[in-house]
């Protein structure tokens, strides 16, 4: 699917669509439509999740799921409140996301609910609880 087909497929659930070219698009989705959209993608034959990016914007924790729709790259954005970011796991629908969700949990403090293996991935076991190195201002706070 190229960008146009992807937009056609998911526009009823999307709240904001920005197509950069025929092989790349950024789509924002609400928490309530998120799972429906994933199901729709799965039904359309999308199987590959390239990665999950977490960005702390200061107001929100933005979680971006990058799906490969062959050839279009769909970046699916979801905004979570910074004080209590939580989201359902997508590893039931896309098993390839398991490691990326662990990464997201430890680096940005997003609670991924229902994750089959919510241990740390990169950080050491004696890393203090509640310290998330990719949160804004984390390094300044440490000094």
């Amino acid at each position, binding site marked *: 699917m190229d960008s146009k087909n992807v937009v056609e497929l998911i526009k009823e659930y999307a709240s904001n669509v920005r197509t*950069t070219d025929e*092989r*790349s698009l*950024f789509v924002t989705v609400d928490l309530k439509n998120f799972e429906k959209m994933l199901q729709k993608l799965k039904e359309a034959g999308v*199987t*590959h*999740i*390239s*990665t999950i*990016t977490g*960005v702390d914007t200061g107001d929100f924790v933005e979680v*971006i799921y*990058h799906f490969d729709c*062959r*050839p279009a*790259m769909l*970046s699916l954005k979801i905004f979570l409140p910074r004080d209590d970011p939580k989201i359902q796991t997508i590893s039931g629908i*896309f*098993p*390839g996301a*398991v*490691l*990326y969700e662990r990464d997201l949990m430890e680096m940005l403090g997003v609670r991924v609910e229902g994750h089959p293996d919510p241990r*740390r*991935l*990169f*950080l*050491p*076991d*004696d890393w203090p609880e509640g310290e998330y*190195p*990719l949160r804004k201002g984390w*390094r300044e706070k440490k000094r």
Partner: protein
Amino acid sequence: MTFVLPVGPQHPSLKEPEFFRFEVKGEEIVDVDIRLGYAHRGIEEAFSRRNYKHNVYLAERICGICNVVHSTTYCQTIEQLAGIEPPERAKYIRTIIMELERIHSHLLWLGVAAHQIGFDTLFMLAWRDREEVMDMRELISGGRVHSATNTIGGVRRNVKLEHIPEMLRRLDKLEKSTGYYADLWGSDRTILARCSKVGVLSKDDAVKFCAVGPVARASNLKLDIRRNDPYGTYEALSFDVVTESEGDVWARGTVRLREILESIRIVRQALHELPSGPLRVPVELKIPPNETLERTEAPRGELVYYARSNGTETPERIRVRTPTYGNFASMKSMFIGGTVAEIPIVMWSIDPCFGCNDRATILDARTGKVSVVNFKQLKRWRR
């Protein structure tokens, strides 16, 4: 009853630290757990502390072996973010050094794989021929491994006219020797006995766990970013996407060897078609708020960079997903059902690339329980 076999972080198959916990029943592997992070250097955070130009060098240092593909992907991402179009000649030079990198990476893989299965003659031969590529890279950039060729808006080094005959001569030599290794890989009894039907990843599992690169292609998935989502000059160059259907270690080796031959074809074409013109365009480093995603085909598979700018000379966020990270999820299904003797070669078959930490694993001989101990505890015990 199962027995726990800790492998690593000081590793039998890699010169890099990573920890694998195998559960074995006699010789058979029944479960495996992977611990990452022994080489985590916090590079994503470091990206957002340096300006765009400095980050070229940081990106290059994520991985020594695939430094060019990292810097190329980084530069392409930033160029897209800022709306810069690099000159055609720069794109061709990038293609040439990226493909030379693929050849040297795959030959390095072949050498170490041969060493893992006790075939040290092949190890020596493969690494001897790898020198040809290293020399070619030195010719272009002055560096055998780190080329420092890329910059935002183009390249810093030129492929000179007088270099071309020398490069073509070396490519011919490489093509001949790679052809011989490919024949050997398909016919030698030792290689077939140690690699065939070992560490099998089925096509379904490769799809399910989002395998990338040669690992996916060896499981019959036609997945190559150079073809699926072409960047740089790849749309204009002709090459085949190599796939195999067996999904075992042997197939992964075959894919890599045949890819070397394709890469030689690509370099020849690029040298032949190399356009004249400037090497780089001037760039404004203050990039207005924007975001973009870019991916390339590294020697080990799909490499993804996400970047967001904020109007300053420093990026807001850079996310890097390396191909080895993408292939970890599918490793479990390669190991389970195999034997202990297969561990090194199967591990090496995904061509992993990790980066050290402060932990040790203790296995209690009486209870069989495994616990992870940190450095503080170890120091306490020493007293």
